[in-house]
């Protein structure tokens, strides 16, 4: 842990003396990129954070949305990339733990987990396979043990993550508005550390997240203990019900240093604490170690002396540690003692507010030529090609992943993982829909349009369940921000997200920035991951079984936008071309129309077109419904394109609706009225996935065989190292 030289000078100047070693550790932890957001904070302000449903309170680690009838939903997203790259099992598991405590600290019960997983090319790279397999087990073991359903996520493989791991975890909480923690404290209140013991694990952790992997501190491995976390959840919620919590913060990156200084700063109080009072795992821990230890499963609670006894009883019942480590003072100082001796005494606002940077940015040179396409070998057999794509790791069914996650516990899961967004029922009769999406391949080609695309895709997924988007979470993951070209991609993505959020009036309710994501081969591709939360007032659109003679209709134009597509990258091994862009007006019209149609109960299911394009989206519908379909490519709306482009373009704002023939005219009428580009392109029946152009057969795949390959491709690869299609 160390400060840069000018930061050290700045600290000396601000406090007018040389810092003690403990002060240095505390400040280094808090001024790290991970805790202070020093490179990004200035710019993050551009995101719209307000909205009629958004509830803002000081010191919340998660976003809060009012969902009516006295209830709130909380949401947060985090990543645990560096730790997962070193120890995928523990890193991914403790990633879940961290985001759950953010939800808990607002005073809400966590009700859902989402995971976004990205690794190197698992077809070639055995190490990537090992990382993937263990990260999935880590998430499963942690979330399952907590009894919080993991109801959705995504999995993607790309060479840019070689020897690395991107593990994003989002969580949603639910509770009564009156139970929200109001985060306040007054002089004489006491500060309690609750949960597991403080050990040497994770020392150097948050710094580690801000350094590239080469210079990692390998002692920063965290061992997950979901059992303690489960007990903390129950104890905290009990204490909340009994009104015992004045303010609360979870311990994450930077450990006690960050929790104490941020609490003091946010609540405008001083905190005096004694490291001797912290329950430690080992007896010989130095104050510096205690202050920066990132031992998991701990919460900081401010309460009053009068309420302490009840709090201790609760902790005793749940057999978790509960130590009074300090008091609230009126002087705005963070005062750390060891017994009688002062080891650190700093103004909270100095510690908690690192000087923000204004880093230079410059358009990367690679972007100048990225849109130029190369000539590909003509495709001779589209059936074979589609089969290959269906078996590819990015497209293959992810049931091997979410089948290891308990996605039913809590008995809220109305729409289960496996299609688009998942849906939870809430206690006020409404339904919540959510999904996270990223697309580094497109973001690499166009950081702005790529990020907008992720946002729109997450919205589309939520809209397919009949939900109106009410909030967004962004997770901005990039390489070294000091590289102006990388910083430019960060800014572009952020600007894109801001423009979309403003135009669609979807407030950003939370987010996270993760920088310095570098592998030995260089920076990762820009990897923003966007979570969207939607609300359904009446009934969600639960996919109904499609039957023979039902119709397939597409909304939205298919354009010549194959840059970053699975077709270019997986089939032709080509990175480049024109990335799909979102036309905001069309996008809104389409969302509105789909919601309208769902509301009128006219369809059996809606599915969005995304990764792999129309060909994959249609195949997915066929496979999940166990029914064939015949699609006429010549009918697909949009400019006139070659067959491969119609099949595999990943243009946004497209939806596939499946419905009973009798509703066709009503749907057409509604879409015409809304001036939406659409067309009925297919009909269900038989056991073949077929694409034709005019009278010419382009693709003809056996449904059962395709389905089998789609289901088993991923486990075959991960467990047995076997490719399903050559």
């Amino acid at each position: 842990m160390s400060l840069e030289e000018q930061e050290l000078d700045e600290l000396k100047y601000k406090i007018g003396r040389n810092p003690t070693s403990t002060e240095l550790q505390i400040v280094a932890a808090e001024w790290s990129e991970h805790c202070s957001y020093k490179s990004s904070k200035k710019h993050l302000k551009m995101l719209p954070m307000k909205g009629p449903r958004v509830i803002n309170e000081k010191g919340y680690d998660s976003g809060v949305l009012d969902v009516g009838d006295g209830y709130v939903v909380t949401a947060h997203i985090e990543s645990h990339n560096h730790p997962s790259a070193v120890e995928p099992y523990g890193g991914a598991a403790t990633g879940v733990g961290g985001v759950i405590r953010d939800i808990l600290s607002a005073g809400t019960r966590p009700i859902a987990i989402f995971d976004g997983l990205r690794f190197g090319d698992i077809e070639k790279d055995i190490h990537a396979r090992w990382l993937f397999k263990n990260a999935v087990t880590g998430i499963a073991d942690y979330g399952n043990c907590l009894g919080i359903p993991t109801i959705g996520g995504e999995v993607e493989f790309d060479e840019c993550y070689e020897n690395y791991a991107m593990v994003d975890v989002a969580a949603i909480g639910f509770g009564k508005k009156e139970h929200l923690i109001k985060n306040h404290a007054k002089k004489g209140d006491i500060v309690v550390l609750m949960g597991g013991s403080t050990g040497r694990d994770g020392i150097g952790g948050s710094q580690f997240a801000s350094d590239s992997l080469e210079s990692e501190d390998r002692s920063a491995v965290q061992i997950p203990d979901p059992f303690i976390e489960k007990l903390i959840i129950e104890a905290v919620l009990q204490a909340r019900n009994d009104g015992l919590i004045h303010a609360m913060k979870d311990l994450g990156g930077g450990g006690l240093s960050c929790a104490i200084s941020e609490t003091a700063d946010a609540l405008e109080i001083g905190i005096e604490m004694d490291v001797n009072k912290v329950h430690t795992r080992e007896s010989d821990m130095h104050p510096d170690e205690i202050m920066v230890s990132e031992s998991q499963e701990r919460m900081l609670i401010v309460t009053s002396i009068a309420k302490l006894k009840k709090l201790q009883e609760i902790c005793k019942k749940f057999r978790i540690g509960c130590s009074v480590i300090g008091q609230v003072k009126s002087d705005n100082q963070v005062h750390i003692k060891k017994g009688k001796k002062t080891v650190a005494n700093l103004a909270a606002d100095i510690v908690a507010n690192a000087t923000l940077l204004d880093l230079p940015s410059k358009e990367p040179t690679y972007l100048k030529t990225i849109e130029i396409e190369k000539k590909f070998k003509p495709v001779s057999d589209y059936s074979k090609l589609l089969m290959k794509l269906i078996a590819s790791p990015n497209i293959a069914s992810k049931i091997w992943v979410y089948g290891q996650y308990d996605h039913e516990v809590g008995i809220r899961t109305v729409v289960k993982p496996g299609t688009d967004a998942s849906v939870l029922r809430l206690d006020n009769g409404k339904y919540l829909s959510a999904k996270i999406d990223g697309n580094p391949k497109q973001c690499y080609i166009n950081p702005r349009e790529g990020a907008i695309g992720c946002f729109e895709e997450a919205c589309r997924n939520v809209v397919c369940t009949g939900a109106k988007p009410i909030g967004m979470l962004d997770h901005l993951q990039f390489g070294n921000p000091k590289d102006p070209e990388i910083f430019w991609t960060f800014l572009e993505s952020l600007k894109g997200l801001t423009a979309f959020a403003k135009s669609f009036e979807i407030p950003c309710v939370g987010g996270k920035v993760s920088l310095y994501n570098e592998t030995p081969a260089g920076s990762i591709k820009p990897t923003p991951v966007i979570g969207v939360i939607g609300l359904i007032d009446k009934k969600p659109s639960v996919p109904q079984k499609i039957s023979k003679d039902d119709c397939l209709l597409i909304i939205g134009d298919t354009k010549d936008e194959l840059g970053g597509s699975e077709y270019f990258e997986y089939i032709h091994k080509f990175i480049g071309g024109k990335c799909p862009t979102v036309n905001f007006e069309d996008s809104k019209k389409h969302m509105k129309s789909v919601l309208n149609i769902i509301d009128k109960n006219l369809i059996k299911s809606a599915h969005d077109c995304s990764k792999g394009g129309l060909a994959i989206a249609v195949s997915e519908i066929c496979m999940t419904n166990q029914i064939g379909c015949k699609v006429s490519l010549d009918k697909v709306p949009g400019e006139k394109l070659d067959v491969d482009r119609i099949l595999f373009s990943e243009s946004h704002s497209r939806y596939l609706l499946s419905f009973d023939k009798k509703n066709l005219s009503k749907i057409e009428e509604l879409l015409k009225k809304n001036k939406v580009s659409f067309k009925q392109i297919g009909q269900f029946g038989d056991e073949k996935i077929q694409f034709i152009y005019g009278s010419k057969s382009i693709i003809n795949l056996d449904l059962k065989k395709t389905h089998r390959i789609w289901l088993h491709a991923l486990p075959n690869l991960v467990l047995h190292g076997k490719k399903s299609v050559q």
Partner: protein
Amino acid sequence: MKVGVVVFPGSNCDRDMYHVLTDVFNINAEYFWHEKGLPKNIDAVILPGGFSYGDRLRAGVIAAHSPIINDVRKMAEKGIPVLGVCNGFQILVESGLLPGVLLKNESLNFMCKWTNLIVENNKTPFTNQFKLNEKIPIPIANGEGRYYVDDDTMKELKKKNQIVFRYSEVVNGSTNRIAGVCNEDGNVVGMMPHPERAVESDINPVDNKPSSLIFESLLTKMGVSK
């Protein structure tokens, strides 16, 4: 009539079970923390699913030593209906109230999926409303759900009609596809699948009627008509 829902450190389906008992079936239910005793006026006991003690050492083994298990045992001896679901089943097995053991699934992974049960014994307090061989669509969610007994015990189980539920397909490698068993008297039943996740139509994608019969059987046994 009153049903006790036993809660261990790490139980996590207790609230789901409580919700189903009270909100869906209008049954008077109460939570009992594992360190407490069970009062005499309890008419049935349910051990819900979860990860008691984090599944450490073996699922259910540490909870099986909890003080409350002595009371559960006494009630079981008196013929009071006892149901263990998932981790509850594991605890009943580890405390010797039910025969057999639950081993790691053959896939070695946690499995969360919907499957079908076949009713093999419709004489228990939790199955008296079923027809024999009736099919129940229901989800499983466990890592250690592979039921195992040795050959001799298996013969006994068959002879004494102690196999209550079987899976309709091979799910996790359980001996004879066993998904649930009862004690010799039939009043203590353990099952790996989660009936509480299947009784409400909005979260059951197939058919919630069959699994509801598990709770309606209990009501019938208690002489309560719904």
